């Protein structure tokens, strides 16, 4: 039914270097198949992910944003991911409120040993975003 198009979603993936980044690595080395749509950006902690980074990624035309950090309780810096959680939760909700589809901004907890989970998350996120199509939110010139 759906016409196959050239377009492939581009996803900005902010991955905590202590867990999800290693998780993504593991997914790669253990040959778990996951779509190549996630452009990985290594961050020192999910707590580093300023909402500005999320919005800037969308502003620059990324079709989606994935933030992934250590499971609650496992933060290398004790509470970075707890703080990230509040921030990301509010950002997601506010962006939804102004009309950015919730699929565009997603978050997950993936540990260094969860290569399979990362592959799954990446695939799911890519599928979600494929469904809603390319990000043209900021494309219109306007004034």
């Amino acid at each position: 039914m759906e016409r196959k198009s050239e377009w492939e979603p581009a996803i900005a993936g902010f991955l905590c270097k202590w867990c999800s980044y290693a998780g993504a690595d593991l997914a790669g080395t253990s040959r778990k198949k996951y779509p190549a749509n996630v452009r990985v950006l290594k961050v020192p902690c999910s707590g580093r992910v300023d909402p500005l980074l999320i919005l800037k990624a969308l502003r620059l035309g990324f079709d989606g944003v994935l933030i992934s950090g250590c499971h609650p309780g496992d933060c290398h810096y004790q509470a970075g991911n707890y703080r990230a959680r509040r921030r990301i939760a509010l950002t997601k909700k506010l962006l939804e409120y102004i009309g950015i589809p919730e699929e565009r901004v997603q978050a997950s907890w993936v540990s260094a040993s969860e290569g399979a989970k990362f592959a799954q998350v990446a695939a799911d996120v890519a599928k979600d975003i494929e469904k809603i199509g390319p990000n043209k939110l900021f494309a219109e010139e306007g004034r």
Partner: protein
Amino acid sequence: MTTKKKISKKDIGKLLGIWSQWFSVLVPSKEENVAKMVGWDGKDVSFLVWYRNTVVPPKANFLPPVEKMFSFQQNRHGYHVEVPQDEQKRLIFGIRPCDARGITMIDKVFVETYEDCYYLSKRKNTVLIGLSCTNPYDSCFCTSLGVKPTESADVDLMFTDIGDEFLIEEVTDKGKELLASAGMVKEATKADDAKAKTVQATVSGMVIRKVDTKDIARKLQACFSDRDYWEKVAAKCISCGVCTFLCPTCFCFDICDELVKKQGARYRGWDSCSFRLYTKMPMENPREEKWRRVRQKVCHKYQFYPMNFDVAACTGCGRCIRLCPVNWDVTQILSSLPASVTSRGDK
């Protein structure tokens, strides 16, 4: 003396219709209750009833809040630069004398030494039709700055409200041409002229806010280093850009580049001396403190600009008073300037 013309108010729609054949006609219009000059829809002339003045001054039609200067793309031969062309002929109907004067003041800056083609191309392609004030705001103080609410030499045609009709003064030849093919425009009589005179006197009398502008430049020079005075005056200013952005004579701008997905462009947009970063250099900022910025704003309008162009860069439109978030009132400042330096100097 040139003979004056007149037109019935109910014919304004028709007149604008005729002009629409040659021009993109702009009239005062409210969008979300913010009045500005925007494209006429071809029928609505209700502004003749509600319009006092726009929130956004018509300078925005020549120096827009943001404007693309050029776009660029890199290919294997290097950069390819493209300048957007704006050759549209425009006619602004209903500009107030204060705002028309404001445009004349910005003209001076954008013409001298180097011509600013972005501003001037729009300026040259635009005809200004002035409309006299009938109901000035209590914040207006134009008469203190030599602007008459019902007369203007800064437009092509000047319309004065004399009841059911407008008296039309042909200020420029361009203006005269505009009336040539308008059948509904009649010759004005002496009685019409007399009516206009009465209106002029009445409306001028309605501008109640007064500032003694004589000697202001000298007084400002005298108190330039009076830090205590300027600190006090600046205390409640919040350093936003409302007064400057919406001032009909302010022209400062910023230039910046943008590059998204290999599509690049250079833009310019309004900037304000109220902003702390306006003069920020890597190591120093000559106007880091708020009182210096407030002083700059006042001195530029009433001391520096007059030194360069022999006239104060203020038309008394009162926007800065009406729209200020904290009611910072420049007329109070101008009336309270100390006669001489009374406090410690600066630095």
